[in-house]
C-alpha cells in the first residue's frame, strides 16, 4: 500500500489574506540608490513570534554602510528595525575593480505597524488599511570602470521578504530529509526558526522579471581625450610659473 509520511518543513508560504511586495530603485539614482520595498498592505504577523525580515544580495558594485544603520531615528524613518547581519565586500571607499569578492549580503528586520496604527490609517484621509507599507534601504554605488559611454547599466536582484517565526517543532526539522541549512540566510537564525515567505508581485515591477536595473554614471572615455595632457600640462605650467615668481 502506498505510504504517506509528513515531516515538518522550514519554509512555508504565507496563509491568506494575500500579501505581496514590489521592489524598485528610487529615482533619480545618483551614486546613492535607495531600494524601495512596497508591501501590498500593512503587514500583520501570522503568529506573535514572527518578525518580518528582508534579505538582500548585492553585487560588488553596491554596498551598504553599516554605521548609518545604528541611529534609531534613521532606522525608523525607513521603517527598519535593525540591520541584523552584513557580510561580504563592505569597504566604504574602494572602486568596483578593486573588489575581489562577488558582493555582500545584508539581513534587515523590518518594523511592522502596530494594530492601532492600522486602524488609525483606516480612518484617515489618505489611506485605508490596504494602503501598503513602505520600506527603504539606502545603498551606495562603487565607481565602475570607465567605458565608451556615459553610463553603465547594472542589474540588482530583488530582495526576499519573509517572516521568521519561532517554531517548537524546530528541533524535529533535522529528521526532514529534504531540509538543508546554511545554504543562505537560514544560517543567520537559530535552529528553531521557520520561515513564512511573502511572495513578490507576480509581474515583477511590470517587467515580469525580479531584477531592477540601475544606470550608473561612469567616466565617459569618448570625452577624455584632453584629460591626461591637460592635467599634466596645467600642473607643469603652474609649477614653472610659481618657480618664476619665487626666484
Amino acid at each position, binding site marked *: 500500500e502506498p505510504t504517506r509520511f509528513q515531516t515538518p518543513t522550514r519554509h512555508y508560504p504565507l496563509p491568506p489574506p494575500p500579501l505581496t511586495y514590489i521592489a524598485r530603485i528610487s529615482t533619480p539614482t*545618483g*551614486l546613492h540608490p535607495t531600494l524601495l520595498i512596497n508591501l501590498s498592505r500593512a503587514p500583520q504577523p501570522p503568529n506573535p513570534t514572527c518578525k518580518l525580515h528582508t534579505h538582500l544580495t548585492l553585487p560588488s558594485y553596491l554596498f551598504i554602510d553599516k554605521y548609518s544603520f545604528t*541611529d534609531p531615528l534613521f532606522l525608523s524613518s525607513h521603517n527598519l528595525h535593525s540591520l541584523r547581519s552584513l557580510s561580504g565586500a563592505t569597504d*566604504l571607499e574602494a*572602486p568596483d575593480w578593486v573588489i575581489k569578492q562577488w558582493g555582500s549580503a545584508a539581513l534587515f528586520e523590518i518594523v511592522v505597524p502596530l494594530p492601532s496604527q492600522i486602524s488609525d490609517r483606516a480612518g484617515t484621509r489618505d489611506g485605508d488599511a490596504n494602503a501598503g507599507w513602505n520600506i527603504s534601504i539606502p545603498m551606495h554605488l562603487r565607481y565602475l570602470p570607465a567605458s565608451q559611454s556615459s553610463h553603465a547599466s547594472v542589474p540588482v536582484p530583488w530582495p526576499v521578504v519573509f517572516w521568521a517565526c519561532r517554531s517548537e517543532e524546530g528541533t524535529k526539522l533535522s529528521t526532514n530529509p529534504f531540509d538543508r541549512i546554511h545554504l543562505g540566510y537560514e544560517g543567520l537564525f537559530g535552529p528553531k526558526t521557520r520561515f513564512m515567505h511573502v511572495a513578490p508581485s507576480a509581474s515583477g515591477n511590470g517587467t515580469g522579471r525580479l531584477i531592477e536595473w540601475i544606470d550608473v554614471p*561612469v*567616466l565617459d572615455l569618448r570625452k*577624455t581625450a584632453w*584629460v591626461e595632457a591637460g592635467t599634466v600640462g*596645467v600642473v607643469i605650467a603652474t609649477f614653472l610659473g610659481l618657480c618664476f615668481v619665487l626666484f
Partner: protein
Amino acid sequence: MALSSFFRSSRAVFSVAVLLRAVFLIYGLFQDALSPMKYTDIDYFVFTDAARFISQGRSPYARDTYRYTPLLAWFIYPITWPGFWFSFGKVLFAVGDIIAGWMMYHILRSYQNMPQERALKFAGIWLLNPMVATISTRGSSEGLLGVFIIALLWAVLAKRIAVAGALLGFAVHFKIYPFIYAASIVWWLDNDHIGKHKTSKPQPVDSFATVAVHFVNRERVVLALYSLLTFVGLNVIMYSVYGFPFLEHSYLYHLIRIDHRHNFSPYNTLLYLNSSPKPTLGFVASSSFELERLAFIPQIFLSFVMIPFSLAKKNLPSTMLAQTFAFVTFNKVCTSQYFLWYMMFLPFYLPDSTLLRSRPIGITALVLWVLGQFFWLQQGYQLEFLGQSTFVPGLWIASIFFFLVNVGVLGIVITDVASGEICP
C-alpha cells in the same frame, strides 16, 4: 559705531567666539536628536567608536576608516562616560579653536606689533569665522591641529626652541603634513633671527665650508633633536602598544591612498582614468603608479624646498601660509576640511597683503575662489544625486579651474612676501 567699539575689547571678541561655538554645539545636539540628517560629522562617530574600543582595551583600528594616531582617541576618552560626555570631543575641539585664536592674537600683538583693535580684527578671521566654528562643533579634528600649529609658531617666535621641536614632532605624528614647516623654521632660524651678534667688520664671501658651519647653530640642532625625539618616541610607544595597524592606518594609508571618489583635486579625473581597467588591455587594472609618485614632485618641491628657501627668512608665518597653500593645492586629494590648514595663517599674512590693500584684486580673488568651489559642487551634486555622468567635462574643468584660482592666489601671496611688503 557699535562694531568699532566691539573690536576694541578683547573680552567682547572672545566672548562672542565662545558664544558662537556654544550655540552651534547646542543646535547640533537638537538636530541630531530630532532628525536623521545629523549635524555631527561622520568622522566624529569614527573617533568616538575608536575611543570606545580603547576604553575596552582594544585597538582603535578595529573601527573601519579610523586613520589617525591612537592619541586622538585617547584625547577624547571622556566621551565613553555616559550622558552628555559624548559631546566632549566637540567641546575639546571648540576650546582648541579658541586657544588657537588667543595665540594668534598674542602673536599679532607681540611679534607683529599690532595695536589691540587691529589684532582683534584679524584674529577674528579665525575666531568669529562660522566655517571654522562649524567644523569644530561638528566634531572634525582639524581645529585641534590648529592649536598645535599656532603654538609651534608662537614657540619659534618666542625662541622657545625645545618646546617648538616637541610641538613639531607631535604635529607630524598627528597629521604628517606639518613636516613641511620644519624646512621653513630651520631656514628661518639663522643668526639674524635668533639674535646672534655678527662681528662688526663685513664678512668676505664665505666658502661653502664656512657657510655650512654657520648653518648649524645651536637653535637648529635643538629643534631637530627635540622634534626627532618626540616624533620617534611617540611612534615607538604607539607601535609597541598597537603594532603594525598603527603604522598602516596612521601613515602608510595616507602615503599610498588614491581617493577615487571625486574631490577638488585636479588629479582626480586623471587618477580615475588611469586606474580604471581598460577593455583593450583585457580588463586588467592598469597601474597609475607613475602618476601618483610623480604628483608628489611639484607638491613637495614647492612646499618643502622652494617656498621655504626663498621666503622663510623674509617672514615666517606668511611663508607657512604659502607652504600649506601649495601643499593643499597640489595634493592628490583635496577636500574642504584641508582649507582650514592654511586658513589659520591668514591673520598673519592679510594685514599687509595685496588682497586687502587693493580692493579689486582681493574681491576678485575671493569671488573666484568661492565660484570655483560652487561650480565644482554643482557638478558633484549632479553626479551624486541626479546620476549624470559629469566626470568629464564638468568635474574635470571645475577642478582645473579651482586649481588655477588657488595657484593665482598663491602667486599673489608669494609675490607679497618676496617683495618684502609683509613686515615681520
